[in-house]
């Protein structure tokens, strides 16, 4: 049962009204860019299949060299939640982490295409430990990734990291939730930014794809539960509850949110924050990995009928909104859906908000899809969602 509380109804209406106001900006909406998106079936993480599949996909986008040759490339991967969580006995990469073979294959192809330096970034759960140590705790071998190309390094962006100071990056169009962010230097010190995401539903944001993956850009030392009030904390503690719920502002070093009177609802706040982040730190290459993943939420902690699934699909493109729109269609959802419609029953659509500010279109009619047609790649998360809801095991909603 959804939206049964009057407060939630109010929030939904308020959210729709605000979203509607943005959507009513015809110039940006109509001008939202459309670019080619490639889809490929890939049933396995076997590098012998995976590497040529990704290589072909990148070729279909015009080739990686034109994007990365001689450039410093930053890749945001998805390692959501603590390394100790598993869905059943399955390793995290089979369900909710970007698979290490996909990371290594992408790194390899970026290196082959002439990337000068490749920095793999993530803000892992509640730790300032090096990413290599986090990977080891996940039973991964970091050397497999570090050796996939020359000049590869990891950086934990959940705190100051290797930088001397945080970098303030402003939202060009002013922002929906925040006017700008204080981020780890790696998001500034790169020429090309890649979002290497997992194809999943999300309890708060409906789906998590190449855009929502970037929610983790925010360092928890400033935007997390344990963030300092005045200055950032030294090390991150806990999650990003303050962004989800808005119960407090980030550390004062960072710009506060724009509309303190806006709904204190994760379904309103998280999609807007994500759009602000991907406007601040534009994504040049978006890759959504849905070879093996999970349905029903973004991680094992969600509960309520989540299950491992094997869509066997990869989606890539140079515009994250376009890529996420095609990914949603592959998942059996309507990319044009908005609040009240699956998978956005209790939240605003990150895609529609991103479209409203001109990042990209989510209108499939305007997006050229190459490779495997969507209907052939279709793996219906939407059907599974309906079945879960019919059983009364709906995706848990945060915020």
């Amino acid at each position, binding site marked *: 049962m959804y939206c049964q509380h009057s407060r939630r109804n109010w929030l939904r209406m308020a959210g729709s009204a605000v979203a509607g106001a943005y959507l009513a900006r015809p110039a940006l909406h109509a001008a939202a860019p459309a670019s080619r998106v490639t889809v490929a079936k890939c049933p396995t993480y076997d590098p012998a299949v995976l590497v040529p599949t990704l290589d072909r996909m990148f070729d279909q986008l015009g080739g990686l060299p034109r994007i990365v040759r001689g450039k410093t490339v930053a890749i945001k991967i998805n390692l959501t939640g603590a390394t100790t969580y598993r869905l059943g*006995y399955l390793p995290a990469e089979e369900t909710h982490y970007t698979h290490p073979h996909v990371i290594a294959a992408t790194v390899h192809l970026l290196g082959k295409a002439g990337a000068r330096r490749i920095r793999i970034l993530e803000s892992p759960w*509640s730790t300032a430990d*090096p990413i290599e*140590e986090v990977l080891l705790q996940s*039973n991964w071998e970091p050397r497999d990734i570090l050796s996939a190309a020359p000049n590869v390094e990891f950086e934990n962006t959940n705190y100051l990291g290797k930088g001397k100071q945080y970098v303030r990056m402003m939202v060009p169009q002013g922002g929906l939730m925040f006017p700008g962010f204080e981020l780890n230097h790696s998001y500034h010190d790169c020429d090309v930014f890649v979002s290497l995401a997992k194809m999943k539903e999300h309890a708060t944001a409906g789906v998590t794809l190449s855009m929502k993956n970037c929610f983790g850009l925010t360092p928890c030392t400033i935007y997390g539960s*344990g963030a300092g009030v005045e200055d950032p904390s030294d090390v991150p503690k*806990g999650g990003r509850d303050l962004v989800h719920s808005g119960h407090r502002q980030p550390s004062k070093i960072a710009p506060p949110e724009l509309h303190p009177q806006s709904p204190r609802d994760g379904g309103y706040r998280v999609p807007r924050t994500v759009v602000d982040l991907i406007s601040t730190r534009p994504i040049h290459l978006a890759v959504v990995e849905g070879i093996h993943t999970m349905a029903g939420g973004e991680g094992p902690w969600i509960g309520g009928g989540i299950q491992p699934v094997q869509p066997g699909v990869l989606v890539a493109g140079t515009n994250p909104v376009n890529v996420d729109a095609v990914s949603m269609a592959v998942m059996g959802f309507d990319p044009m859906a908005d609040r009240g419609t699956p998978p956005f029953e209790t939240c605003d659509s990150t895609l529609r908000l991103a479209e409203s500010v001109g990042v990209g279109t989510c209108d499939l009619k305007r997006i050229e899809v190459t490779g495997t047609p969507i209907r052939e790649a279709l793996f219906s998360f939407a059907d599974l969602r309906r079945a879960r809801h019919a059983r009364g095991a709906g995706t848990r909603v945060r915020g």
Partner: protein
Amino acid sequence: MNLQWTPMRWPAAWKNPETLRLLQDTPINCLLVESGTDLGPLAGQAQRSGLAIASKPPMGVSLSKGEWPGIQMAARGSGVSAGPTGVPWLNSNGWRVRLENALHPDTEVWIDAPPKGPRLFPDSFAMAFLDAAAYGGRWLISLDDATASAIAAQEPRALEGWNKLIAAARFFDAHKPWADYSPEAVVGVVSDFTGDHEFLSGETLNLLARDNQQYRVIVKGSISDASWKGLRAILYLDPEPPLPPLRREIEALVAGGKLLIAGPQWGRVAGPLAADQENPRYDIRVVGKGKVALAKAEPDDPYTLANDSVLLVSHRYELLRFFNGGAVSAYLAAAPNRKSALLHMLFYSNRGPQDASVHIAARYRSAKLWTADRAEPRSLEVLPGRDGVELHLPAMSQYAAAELEI
């Protein structure tokens, strides 16, 4: 070691001699009473039942003050306290048992940890016993007045908790040789563990356990070749540098490939800075095939020290890695013949973990799973994993031991 005793502090609420029936056919064989307590007819009846009655532990027993084990409940409300990493804070006496065993190898270790906390659950008493027994010690069974009265009154929930406690005691009574197993470890913690060093060294052991780092207690003056066996690293804790023979021994181990972590008191270390490793609080130098990580300032915070040591050693070398284990603490120990090992696992949350698994960085061939509620073990599939094996654990609660064959 021949564990002789299963002790219990006689509850003041048990005044009726009939309550002695509760101890019939249980491993409990020693009743501790307050000095000067007149047990009346209870005393004679207890002695006729073969129970020893004493006001202090018998010879050969070391009584150590402990904490009521379990997830630390918040002072207010129903929440749980969190450690600095946000994970629930666990109190366990495992490190005390191991430290006492190392300091006094020929004595039995009793842990004196009376029930404490805003809420006591009937199952908590079994947990208190298991928490000491898994490490080779014995909890001095202590009941709060309300629980003791409820048990004496045969209240079903209280009796259920009592029966679980007795089952745990029976289980370890049937497996006394397990206490002779020796710890498999990644890091050896060197100290005299006394005097001014007692707090830092003890608390570091406690926090290493919380970090799931398998350690060995190495007491200065009781060091043998076996002390260093299988270690990746040596954590030298005392503010005074070691005497020359120990220093030379440790330096040789470093030259052979081990990592030494020590405070600035260790003195100057010759060798280039390690290019592949950085830590804001340590200078790390390459010495021979090994490394020395020297703290820039005297470590005084055991939490930071324990966490730093785990990172300096690297998770690459950790022996155990749990998934979905919840509030778990574990202890891997090898049989005296080293052909088998035991992985003791303690699950402190009220509900046991679901779909828990553990990666063990060793190549064991077979495994069986013991739980305190069964006399016989279950077979457990050993799955190959990266650099080791993985066990998928069935649903269970509180305690299990995986017996692993090489």
